[in-house]
C-alpha cells in the first residue's frame, strides 16, 4: 500500500500541488536534501506531462500519484491516456534541428516525448511501463533513502 496516494484532476494548477506533496513526503521519508530539487523537478515534469495528455485524451479521468517510502522513495505517476499517444523516441537534441529549420512554424510545443526525455535526464532510476488495468502509462521514479536521516525524522 502506498504511503501517500494523491489524485488530481487534469488541471495545470494542480501540478504544483502534486510536486509540493511529493517533495514534502520525500523530506519526511528521509531522502537526502540534495535530491529534493531533483524530485521536485522530475515529479513536476511527470505530472505536467500526464495533465497535458489527459486534457487531450482523458479529460474526465484523474491523474494518480503513488508515493511509497519502504526502503527507497518511489513516486509513480499514472496517466490514463491511450498507449502510444506519446512516444519516447528521439533525443531532446532533436529540438536543435527543428529549431534551426527555416520551415518550422512558430510554436511553443516541444516534440512528443520531450517531457519523458527530461525526466530521464533527471532521474537515474526510471521505469516507464504500460498500465496493466486499462489504458495509460506508469512513470516510476526511485530515489534512495538516507538511513541516518530516515531514522531521525520518523
Amino acid at each position, binding site marked *: 500500500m502506498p504511503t501517500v496516494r494523491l489524485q488530481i484532476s487534469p488541471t*495545470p*494548477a494542480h*501540478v*504544483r500541488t502534486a*510536486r509540493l506533496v511529493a517533495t514534502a513526503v520525500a523530506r519526511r521519508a528521509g531522502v537526502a536534501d540534495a535530491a529534493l*530539487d531533483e524530485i*521536485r*523537478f522530475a515529479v*513536476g*515534469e511527470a505530472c*505536467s*506531462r500526464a*495533465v*497535458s495528455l489527459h486534457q487531450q485524451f482523458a479529460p474526465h479521468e484523474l491523474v494518480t500519484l503513488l508515493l511509497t517510502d519502504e526502503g527507497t522513495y518511489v513516486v509513480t505517476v499514472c496517466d490514463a491516456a491511450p498507449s502510444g499517444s506519446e512516444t519516447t523516441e528521439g*533525443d*531532446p*537534441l532533436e*529540438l*536543435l534541428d527543428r*529549431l534551426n529549420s527555416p520551415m*518550422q512554424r*512558430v*510554436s*511553443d*510545443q*516541444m516534440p512528443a516525448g*520531450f*517531457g519523458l*526525455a*527530461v525526466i530521464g*535526464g*533527471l532521474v537515474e532510476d526510471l521505469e516507464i511501463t504500460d498500465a496493466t488495468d486499462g489504458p495509460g502509462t506508469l512513470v516510476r521514479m526511485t530515489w534512495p533513502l538516507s538511513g541516518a536521516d530516515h531514522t531521525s525524522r520518523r
Partner: protein
Amino acid sequence: MDLSLSTRTEGDRTVVAVGGEIDVYTAPKLREQLIDLVSNGNYHIIVDMESVEFLDSTGLGVLVGGLKRVRAHDGSLQLVCTQERILKIFRITGLTKVFPIHASVDEAITATD
C-alpha cells in the same frame, strides 16, 4: 509561488525579469508577455531568470517559441541564469547550445553589443 514578470529597457534591449515558478500553469503568462513584446517591435530580449525557482518543459517551450519569434525579425533572445538547478534543465535538454546563457544582465547586454 506564482510567476512574477517585470520588463524594463536597457538601451535597445528589453529585459524581462522573471521570478517564481515557470510551469504548465504559469507558462502561458510568460508566453503572452514575450508575444506582446515582439508584437510591439522589441526584437532583442534578455530574460533574467535569476529569481526563477522552478522550470519545466512547458516553460522551455515558451522560451524556444520566443526565440523563434525574435529570430524571425533577426532579433535575439538571451538568458541570464547562474542557478545550478535551472542550468541543469538546460543542459539535459541540450538547450545550452540554443540559448546564450549569461551570468548577469550586464554581461548579456555587453555580449549583444
